[in-house]
């Protein structure tokens, strides 16, 4: 019987297994291959905080979801069409999310009595018929298959067993008609010098593919055509890597040395690690003894003329708060990145959340305004990081860049930018006295209100800065009440002046209508997808996405009143919502979910329909 190809627009698949099963690697390989095939894609890695939770436990389940499409897409998808479950625990955790009628590919060999019990199953779900009515169940004896494939290799059964993720990947490659070459090449590079491992994994991959081909379980294969992306050179890009690249590009364009002071923390550590590998770009990375030391070193490096950056997550920002205030009062340029995760306290270290907006806005003592920019997609982290650096240097201020766990680890096809076309970042260190035979470190630029930057080593401009309130112009210590009031106003006004650099808002849809979806940060994709669907249905729904949250763009106020309803979906309890209501006195409504994962497109559509009645 011949196999048939069915062309579909898009598919969502999810790999789930034990932390040790290599699900992130499998997802990563599927992603890279899918990118090369030319689909648009979006990914959602979802892993536990524990490095190795007990094997087979529910807590140890690690998953990776990818949506790929022949169209322009914005999210990793709500519910998968295909679930690959490598053990009972993975099935237990994820089966409820599979779409009705979806395909379930399971490693039958892992459904042992012990594992079933560990996952809380009383009977074996792949044998008791409980799934058959709802899903297409495809149990495969993966361990047996890879054992057979690796026959003749001198390798322990344990190591052979570890290749079963490649087998599963091969099956999925067959189902969705993807080539094996890039994964084979990748294996050779990754395990260079370990020929047996390369051989075993390659055999497992091919075995999976061939199994799909020979068995009659997969009579229909799926084709997802190339997406119609803007022309250009592309690569796959994840958020933390994009952030690192954006910082490096800003250093090159500004001509400054990049100094990065950091302390390891999930999900921001990749940025430290990535920058540490770029020593040949002159990058100095300093792994500090704690979060406070890392921001303090950044302040010292900023004072000394580096492009100074730190990245952390919410708990780290909390520790850095006092020092950030020092950065604000000394008006030194630096970028502080928060890759947000679930909170409060240690919260959900590996899961995404947008709940540090209030912290970014208000989490310091005193009146301490700080510009806040938020990345919208994994690839956008590059541009957001670049812009954060540019504004920090132009306005002489710390800038906070908000990313999140989803953006940091998620990926998408990324059109490679041309560095020459990025906006210039001019830096002019002070070289001469700007007063009457004296240097005035707080004499301001009329347009930006920024102060001059005289760095140690510059003759004749020796001066002192510090955390005590300073007198206007001279920067001397001042306890004068009028001066403090004035300096407070100036610091506020300086941040507001950044509006000059914020382009007019891009409204997706009509600039007035029944409902506006207003978003910031990583919820961009879900909100845009929901808006597209609602507009296709003929609803009067528009979407505005904020890149800058502080200051808010000049034109937001006039735009926002053009809609009868305003909906602000956020992965927090309504932090932008409260700001918008306070700022513009509009009766905006929130859609607030904190489940450690992106807000689903369907929940936004549902909420909009409910609001529109």
């Amino acid at each position, binding site marked *: 019987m011949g196999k048939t190809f069915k062309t579909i627009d898009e598919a969502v698949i999810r790999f789930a297994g034990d932390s040790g099963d290599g699900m992130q690697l499998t997802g990563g390989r599927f992603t*890279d291959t899918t*990118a*090369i095939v*030319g689909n648009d894609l979006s990914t959602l890695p979802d892993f536990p905080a524990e490095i190795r939770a007990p094997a087979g436990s529910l807590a140890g389940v690690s998953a990776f979801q990818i949506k790929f499409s022949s169209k322009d897409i914005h999210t990793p998808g709500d519910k998968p069409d295909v679930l690959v479950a490598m053990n009972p625990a993975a099935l237990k955790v994820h089966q409820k999310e599979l779409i009705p009628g979806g395909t379930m590919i399971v490693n039958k060999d892992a459904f042992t009595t012990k594992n079933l019990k560990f996952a809380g199953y009383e009977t074996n779900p792949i044998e008791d018929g409980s799934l058959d009515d709802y899903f297409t169940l495809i149990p495969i004896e993966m361990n047996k298959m890879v054992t057979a494939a690796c026959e003749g290799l001198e390798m322990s059964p344990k190591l052979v067993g570890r290749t079963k993720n490649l087998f599963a990947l091969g099956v999925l490659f067959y189902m969705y008609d993807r080539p094996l070459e*890039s994964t084979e090449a990748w294996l050779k590079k990754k395990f260079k010098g370990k020929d047996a491992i390369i051989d075993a994994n390659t055999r497992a991959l091919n075995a999976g593919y061939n199994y799909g081909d020979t068995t009659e379980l997969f009579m229909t294969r799926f084709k997802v055509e*190339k997406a119609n*992306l*803007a*022309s*250009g*050179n*592309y*690569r796959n890009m994840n958020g933390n890597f994009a952030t690192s*690249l954006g910082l*490096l*590009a800003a250093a*090159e364009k500004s001509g400054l*040395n990049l*100094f990065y002071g950091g302390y390891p923390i999930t999900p921001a550590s990749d940025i430290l690690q990535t920058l540490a590998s*770029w*020593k*040949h*770009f*002159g990058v*100095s990375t*300093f792994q*500090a*003894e*704690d979060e*406070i*030391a890392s921001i*303090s*070193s*950044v*302040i*010292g*490096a*900023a*004072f*000394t*003329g*580096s492009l*100074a950056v730190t990245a952390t997550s919410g708990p780290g920002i909390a520790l850095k708060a006092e*020092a950030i205030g*020092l950065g604000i009062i*000394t008006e030194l340029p630096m970028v502080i990145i928060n890759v947000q995760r679930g909170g409060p306290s240690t919260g959900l270290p590996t899961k995404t959340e947008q709940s540090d907006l209030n912290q970014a806005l208000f989490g310091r003592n005193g009146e301490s305004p700080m510009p806040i920019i938020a990345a919208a997609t994994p690839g956008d982290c590059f541009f957001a990081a670049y812009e954060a650096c540019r504004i920090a240097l132009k306005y002489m201020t710390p800038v906070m860049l908000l990313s999140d766990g989803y953006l940091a680890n998620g990926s998408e096809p990324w059109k490679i930018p*041309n560095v*020459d076309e990025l906006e210039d970042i001019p830096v002019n260190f002070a070289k001469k006295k700007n007063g009457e035979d004296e240097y005035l470190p707080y004499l301001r630029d009329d347009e930006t209100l920024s102060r001059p930057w005289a760095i*140690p*080593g510059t*003759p*004749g*401009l*020796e001066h*002192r*800065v*510090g*955390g*005590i309130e300073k007198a206007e112009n001279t920067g001397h*210590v001042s306890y004068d009440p009028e001066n403090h009031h004035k300096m407070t106003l100036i610091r506020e006004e300086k941040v507001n002046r950044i509006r000059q650099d914020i382009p007019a808002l891009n409204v997706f849809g009509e600039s007035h209508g029944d409902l506006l979806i207003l978003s910031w940060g990583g919820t961009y994709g879900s909100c845009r997808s929901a808006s597209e669907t609602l507009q296709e249905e003929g609803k009067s729904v528009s979407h505005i996405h904020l890149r800058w949250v502080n200051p808010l763009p000049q034109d937001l106020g006039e735009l926002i009143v053009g809609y009868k309803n305003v909906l602000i979906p956020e992965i927090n309890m309504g932090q932008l919502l409260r700001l918008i209501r306070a700022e513009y006195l509009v009766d905006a409504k929130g859609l607030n979910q904190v489940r450690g994962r992106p807000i689903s497109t369907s929940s936004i559509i549902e909420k909009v329909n409910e609001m529109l009645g």
Partner: protein
Amino acid sequence: MNEIQTPPLTKKDFESDQAVRWCPGCGDYAILAQTQKKMPSFGRKREEFVFVAGIGCSSRFPYYMNTYGFHTIHGRAPAVATGVKIANPDLSVWVVTGDGDGLSIGGNHFMHCLRRNMDLNILMFNNRIYGLTKGQYSPTSELGKKTKASPFGSIDYPLNPPSLALGAQATFVARTIDRWQKHLAEMMERSYAHDGASFTEIYQNCNIFNDGAFEEYTGADKFNNVIELKHNEPMVFAKGTKGIKLEGSTAVIVDLEKSSIDEVLIHDETNLDMAHIIANWTTHPILPEPIGVIYCIQKPTYNEEMVNQIDAAKKMRGSGKVQDLLNAGDTWVVD
């Protein structure tokens, strides 16, 4: 090259125009004056000095030095100074801190910058009290100290700064006293000359909240209570009438009017074991208080090693271009 001859700098060149605001009689004045006096002798350009301080009385220091200066936040001066030094290793970076700032709230940074051998000169003014907050006990206050925060006497055991520094792998540990002006200047010179983290503890009298804390070492009987360590010289004190020797691993006092000087220990500032023993004489009930360079060795500094790594990477891989990095990896073209 046609260099313009500039007159050598003087003490005055290092005095800022800011009025000094310590209490009259404070030991900080003496340290400031000595620092301003000493700086020109280093023969370095003024713009290459950076003074970084935390919070506390001592930490106002940078405001009074006409160099680059940073009055930071409580305890963080070593970390800020670390950023300064990495960003520009050619600068001479000085950290001014106190016992509360450096050992309590900033203890972590203190320990780690010593461990890394970051090339910073750390001057710790130890007055064994919190002065700026008006008189609470500090981590070097003696047990039982009565302050406003410990009206029944402190139940905190004090820590020993040189021992802590040695434990943190410091490569230069010294102690001096505000009133010992010549000695203070000498220690500053040694600190400056040392490549790597230099820790100098300065006993400093707070005449308002802890007056007389170091009276034993500055009063009429000071030579009987202080031993001035000198490299490769016998450890003698009390104007040469007494010395120190080891009995097993225990230090004891030798009466040189009865015994030979040959029995006396010779100070070797490169000997870590000896340094630990000497550090233990701090506030010892019998032994004199050691001052001078307790320990000094050379090893590569963090800032040098960072420069070396960057240079080596550039040599090996060539100076990076961002566009190349952007274009790297698996890429594909969409027409």
